[in-house]
């Protein structure tokens, strides 16, 4: 097993022990196995904050 898989497995075990948002956090952990893990997380982060800004702009527009 690759080292990164071992680390992911260990972290996944900890996630399951805590039992909070297990599915989402395990999905994030699986990203770590990709070469572009950092880029993918950054992209997801960018889309989420964009979603917040877009929704806020829509609400402003509705109340304008």
């Amino acid at each position, binding site marked *: 097993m690759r080292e990164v898989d071992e680390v992911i497995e260990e972290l996944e075990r900890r996630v399951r022990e*805590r039992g909070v948002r297990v599915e989402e956090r395990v999905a994030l952990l699986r990203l770590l196995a990709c070469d572009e893990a950092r880029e993918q997380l950054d992209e997801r982060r960018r889309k989420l*904050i964009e979603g917040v800004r877009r929704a806020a702009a829509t609400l402003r527009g509705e109340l304008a």
Partner: protein
Amino acid sequence: MTPRPVRIELRGFRGWTEGAFELDRDLTVIVGPNGCGKSSAVNALEWCLFGRDAELKASGIDERADWEVAHLDERGVAGDVEVRLALETGEGTARLVRRRPAGAKPRDEDDFSVELPDESVLRGVEAVQWMGAAGLPEWGTWRRALCQHQETARARLTASGDRSTLLASLLGLETHESAREVLEGCKPGALVKEIDEEVGALERDLLARLARPAEEQEECERGLAALDLERERLRPTLALELARGLLERARALGAELGFAPELPDCESEHELPRVADWVARWPERAREAARVDARLRRASGLRAKLDAADQAVGPAEERWRQARDRAAGEVRARGDVATQERLLSEARKARDEAEAALRRDDAARALVRDAREVLRHAHDPEACPVCAARAPGLAARLEAELAAGGEQRHAALEDDCGERGARVEELERGLRATRELVQAEADARASLDRAHGALSEFLPAGHAASGRDPLAAARAELERLERDVRDLERGRRVLDDALRAHHADAERLRAVQRWREAVLRAERSADPTSSPAWRELQAALDAAAAFAADLEALGGMAREAQERASEEREREVNERLGDHYGRITGDEGAAGVRVRGKRTPKGLTFDLEDARGKRVLATLNQAALNSVSLALLLAQAEERARAGRAAFVVLDEPGQSLDDEHQAGLARAIEHLAAICPVIVATPPGALAERLVEGREPSRRVLKLAPRDPGEPRRGARIESREER
């Protein structure tokens, strides 16, 4: 089984023109004086594995900034380069082959392939993937944990970041560190801060806007009061009622002006935007459909033209009557043209006869005068001078003839001729005058006919067939046009009035719609949470916050895992590091140096400290620094080998700055490691070389390189002897 290098063949690589040697399963020692090709031999191995990653700036080794891979011949010209590295694997011997043709550009890919034991050949990406799958290290790991480059012997320890990474690697925590960095590098805390700032800005906006709709509603109500719509009359359906009124008035206007307007439906408030669009366009459409202006222009123009034609008929008729009367009077006085022409013809004939009689008389008188003159000069006044016939009293008779009445007759003939000529002239003048008057009457008649024709053009079709007097018909038509113009002018006034009323109604409708929207906004702003956009925002906030919380939690877990692994492994690794350091320095009983993890806000960092817990690097001399660097490298390699990961160690002149005692200690440490994983050492003659060459355990191959011939500096490295123990 992890791959183990067993043979290397090189051609045209740096100090070597050509060469090949076997590598021992335990220890390979390459010995030779400076400049004999030792470093080139070990560099060839890593160049075969890593290619351009191990060259120039990409290598991360400053001393390689101007590195030339190819061997330069006597003329300083580089040729083809090829290195073949044989690896023993569980399936047999695989060969890595890297070739670079002479003249290759810095960005050109090398020709790299892997010849597998089953004789298949992998190239390019497949070859690199095979290396990864076989557990061969990447360049970074190689640099840090498996190869001591003589250029960077101590550099790894002097930069704190590199040192921490190096020590984390020694503890086998690189992947933990990398995972933690990826998770925390996404900056979940900053994401939460960004979300907070966005929500804060939105709250400020919302608070400002909560007050605005009520003010807007009041302003709308003041505007409506100015349009005679008092507040008590305002109701939600007012816009709909006003719109229906507008449509009804438009329908009535169409009926009055004779056209059927296209009107939108107006059953509910949803249709008001379409109605508003129609309201804006209605004035233009109504004018187009009614065509009042165009029709009025046409009727007025027709009326003016018909009136002008009618005005022209009377004078033309008067002119014709006068011409006709004058011509009739002339005919009565002189006769008609034909009679006058006949009389003129007769008068001309009489005049011509009188003129002929006068001419004959003139000729006879001339003859008599001639004869009298002849006789006056003749011999015989009684004889004819021509025929000599006798004519008694001829001369006397001639004189008598001339004297008796010839003059009177001639005068009478001349008078007659003059009278008849005067008669002809009189008749000619009369005939011309009569003809002119007749022509004038004809011209006046033609002018009158043209005036009638012009009039007929403006009369309704079929007028000519009706037999009605054109003038009377024209008068009737003029009256009809007058009525039309009056009707159309009235229609235009109606249209103008209706459209003025429409503009006023439209303004009311727009004001009521603005008021209604203001009311709805005021209702919405009182409770923005009922908006779908609010729910969308909450969902976006929840998703972003959950992502930030997940990253934060996972980063924390990664840190915990790293700390736990660090604690578990520190003792074991420190023991191994202490062993190697003790062997090199000869102080095997002392704890020497050890790795210690330290938690910081940025994560877990590692440093070296002594037994008393103090950082040691600042106090170490060069030999001790080299010893620590080598001990770290050997400990790392041992860690990898014991963990079953591919490990073979290359040490290029590791004895630098070490005295004989330390070199002997280093030899012991190398032999200890060589019993665990293959080690290749390049070293000049000296204590280290002697100890490594003389040793028996573990097994080893010794390769002695010949000194460089000063007379042939470009000749290339040569193997002087090979020995296997």
